[in-house]
């Protein structure tokens, strides 16, 4: 991951600031930086989103492809995650440098989506045991400015919200042979419900307190942080501790409470932004990568 070199004095300054609920950029401990979200940025995907969180810049594309369901879940489709760490983000990612981080993020994403409620996988099934939709979720890190996981989870949720899966019909003849018919109308699509798609809230333990949405500098001051994935209703679906330091049970509990509180707010504002954007329809002026 990207590195910042901080002197001891700078660290002390940050830690003491946090102690006072006043962070370097003026935020409080539970405040997010300004998040920019735009969907439908890559036209040849089924759904896409770009999220900027401070200097963190994430692009997510979702591609729907037809495949066969997994044996153990014959009437469900599934999601596949892949994270690409572009060398644009930091020179360390050059070559295979970003692979470890990419795998780590992908595994985390698999974990937070590995439950029945996050996405209605049954709606991705076309015909049991034979055809289902597979959603390939490709994440591209364009820039790392701290708090990668949160930004990625927001981008994934936005991209899934934007995803349009072509409606297909299964025709069956007398012999039981199936043929798939595709609708002629490109607008004839199904949309996923992202109501229960969780977002990750990362809490960094700095000194005696914890902060959300840490910058790179703040991350450098933290020894341990907790990833909590929270749904819009405030349900925690998954939790993971990262970093080499340790957390005592009491502060873990505190952090979870914070994440629920913060997560709910995050979901509400994301939801409202996405709906607002969608209501603009196809005539919306796109910002894209040049804006």
């Amino acid at each position: 991951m990207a590195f910042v070199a901080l002197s001891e004095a700078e660290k002390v300054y940050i830690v003491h600031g946090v102690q006072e609920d006043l962070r370097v950029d003026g935020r409080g401990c539970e405040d997010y930086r300004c998040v920019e979200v735009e969907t439908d940025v890559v036209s040849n995907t089924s759904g896409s989103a770009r999220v900027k969180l401070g200097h963190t810049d994430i692009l997510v594309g979702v591609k729907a492809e037809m495949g066969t369901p997994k044996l153990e879940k014959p009437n469900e489709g599934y999601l596949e995650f892949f994270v690409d760490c572009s060398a644009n983000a930091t020179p360390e990612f050059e070559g295979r440098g970003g692979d470890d981080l990419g795998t780590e993020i992908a595994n985390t994403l698999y974990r937070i989506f590995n439950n029945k409620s996050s996405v209605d996988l049954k709606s991705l099934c076309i015909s049991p045991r034979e055809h289902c939709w597979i959603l390939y979720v490709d994440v591209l890190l364009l820039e790392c400015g701290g708090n990668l996981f949160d930004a990625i989870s927001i981008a994934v949720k936005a991209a899934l919200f934007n995803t349009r899966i072509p409606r297909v019909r299964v025709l069956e003849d007398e012999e039981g042979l199936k043929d798939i018919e595709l609708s002629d109308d490109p607008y004839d699509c199904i949309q996923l419900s992202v109501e229960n798609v969780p977002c990750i809230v990362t809490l960094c333990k700095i000194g005696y307190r914890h902060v959300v949405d840490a910058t790179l500098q703040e991350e450098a001051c933290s020894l341990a942080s907790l990833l909590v994935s929270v749904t819009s209703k405030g349900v925690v679906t998954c939790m993971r501790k990262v970093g080499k330091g340790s957390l005592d049970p009491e502060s873990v509990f505190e952090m979870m409470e914070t994440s629920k509180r913060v997560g709910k707010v995050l979901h509400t504002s994301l939801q409202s932004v996405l709906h607002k954007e969608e209501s603009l329809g196809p005539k919306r002026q796109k910002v894209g990568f040049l804006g």
Partner: protein
Amino acid sequence: MLKSRTFLKKTRAGGVMKIVREHYLRDDIGCGASGCAACGSAHEGPVLEPQPLDRVSSLCPQPHYLLPDTNVLLHQIDVLEDPAIRNVIVLQTVLQEVRNRSAPVYKRIRDVTNNQEKHFYTFTNEHHRETYVEQLQGETSNDRNDRAIRVAAKWYNEHLKKMSAENQLRVIFITNDRKNKEKAIEEGIPAFTCEEYVKSLTANPELIDRLACLSEEGNEIDSGKIIFSEHLPLSKLQQGIKSGAYLQGTFRASRENYLEATVWVHGDTEDNKEIILQGLKNLNRAIHEDTVAVELLAKNQWVAPSSVVLLDEGQNEDDMEKEEERECILKTAVSEKMLKPTGRVVGIIRRNWRPYCGMLSKSGIKESRRHLFTPADKRIPRIRIETRQASTLEGQRIIVAIDGWPRNSRYPNGHFVKNLGEVGDKETETEVLLLEHDVPHQPFSQAVLSLLPKMPWSITEKDMKNREDLRHLCVCSVDPPGCTDIDDALHCRELENGNLEVGVHIADVSYFIRPGNALDQESARRGTTVYLCEKRIDMVPELLSSNLCSLRSNVDRLAFSCIWEMNHNAEILKTRFTKSVINSKASLTYAEAQMRIDSSTMNDSITTSLRGLNKLAKILKKGRIENGALTLSSPEVRFHMDSETHDPIDLQTKELRETNSMVEEFMLLANISVAKKIHEEFSEHALLRKHPAPPPSNYEILVKAAKSKNLEIKTDTAKALADSLDRADSLTFPYLNTLLRILATRCMMQAVYFCSGMDTDFHHYGLASPIYTHFTSPIRRYADIIVHRLLAVAVGADCTYPELTDKHKLAELCKNLNFRHKMAQYAQRASVAFHTQLFFKSKGIVSEEAYILFVRKNALVVLIPKYGLEGTVFFEEKDKPKPRLTYDDEIPSLKIEDTVFHIFDKVKVKIMLDSSNLQHQKIRMSLVEPQIPGISVPTDTSNMDISEPETKKKKLQK
């Protein structure tokens, strides 16, 4: 301005792909009208006339342009092609839709737009900023296209109004879609249906005939009863074919029986490759050459191919009871083993309609505008057309296109396309048979002619590279008299070591026809030169075929030589191939060559060379026959033409001389040597020719026929067949052997070209050669050109090119060549048949001896050896009482009243040209001897002296 178009596509593997294309919109696309100031700067020159006044329409008196929609273009192309229709705007949307739906129509419309005089303008509305529309939510792509067309029409009207307010130029939208028309009128676009518009053109009433009649779906139900069951939709058919419930195949109607057809099932692993369909309902509106899906019937409903000859003669439409009665005739008790898989057509996968030549059968009702059209091809059903000029079209050869076949109609509906000319007229009839056999016969295009070498042409130093100078050899050519495309020449000389050197020199056509250019493509398309009785349709332009490539005497010509060193027993010691330059010393006819060989006084180098060749040829032939090569026979006829009128005045069967077989023998040898060589060099993509051994069942008729004459024909191998044919002789009946050979020829399979990489069986059955190809006639066969190219690469005389070593391309080429060869053969036969008719027209009624070739249920097929003419003697006539007919399939024999007819029986028949039926002039034959009261015709009709034309012939030869 940039837009992106998104659409979904199903991939072949069954997946769904989202495809995004960038789509640029521009504002500099001209409207195409000349004098338009707004579009003055547009780069394309104006196409539409500023004042299109030539059409006077009662619906729209002002000057106007037409803007047809897709369906109008697809179905009414015949109208649009008419010279009366000009100044038409073809939208890109329309053009693209047409291209997706019908390639032939697309090609035709492209031709029309390229014609300057038609003033057709293609407007790229999809890229015009103001006429581009995006698909809306809930709109199908069809609706979107309709909207795009309307938007463009509207734009045009507004645009033209801006251009000049006073002269009121308008654009009229032509659509046959009722809803689309209503919407257009709502939007203020003047719109008419094609029919309305064409009918309003008071100056051109003949156009109405060319309108395709399309039954609107609405009125289909209420008029008349439904005769046919519905065709299943394509998606259902495809599923059915996948699951094996239906079989896909090519529909082939029977020539002899309009109620019967066969379907050749595609795919080679099927056991039942051929399915029989019987009865109108089971044929279910399929037309010859369509690709159809058939369903097999239960085994107890299987039938045997009937041996009845049935012609569709009913004038009354929809006379279904009679049909059913006729269908009953077909179903007679037959032994179990004769039954063949039987099916019915459930749907049409692809129609293969083309315009058909034929004649009008005028309706009995005087005022009627609906008439039946009888195509020249008996396999095509009659077509109902609507015309007001029936009386002028009567007795003319016309072209008609099929528009559709509704379920309640006995006949398909069609419309008049073109009048070819009077029936019986030689030009017209030749045109008909060329069209009917799909022979490309238009003059060569400018692009093709531009590739010909400039005259005067001579061999340059550069050409001599990789080429051997054989001008010193004593080469000569032997051909039929009057031959101008000489593609082979021979030489033979003794070497110092006592062996003989024999050379076959073939015109080096591949030097002039370079791969891939227009000339090459055109020759590949034509595939073969077609020889008709009085006309030759060249495969390559005449400059090449009759001059530069023709190995004429005493000029230097480029050749491809195959040179063998042989000993005196005709054993090949050495073979080599080389490009060469030769100078033929003499162009001889077969007769001249024969004369030289026979005359003892001539001893010049050409004659000795010929004698050497002749000697070797005899040995080669003997060897070949011992190997089991077949000598077959087919009655071949040549016409003697009157030099002025070009009418046939006499016919004679082809004479065979020793020299014929001499040339043939060396050509075979060259072909075999070349085949070996190219297969050795290019084992995967050599173009070869094979002749598959016929399945034993093919010989049944031959064996049965011979048995009836107490002869045994063995058909286990080619050798056995050849030997038993040689033995099959009867002292009392010398012509029997020829008849048997004619029958044997009919049992054979068609020889075909193929690509060595796509097949494993190379055997040539008729020639008893393990490998064979065509090398010796590149002027008149395209296959030989490819073989020349392969051989040139093999000997390092020329370079290769990618298509030459692409076996799939080669296989495709072979398919076309096989098709063209078959069609050329049919055209040739049709030409002979037509000239035979002309011949008998001038001769009147003749009685001749004939032999029965086949016995049918209600007819005899006879062969008249004198004319090489085959005909059918029918015993059931419409208005006469039916005679007692008993047919025995086993022997086969036919008992009429009390007389029994067997195959090969000698009969006497009366031949006359039946002009009573103008639809089809045909040669009618009726039985004279043996006499059967009430059936045979009396002999008293003057038996004209056949020797009479002899004198005329002599006159001609003077």
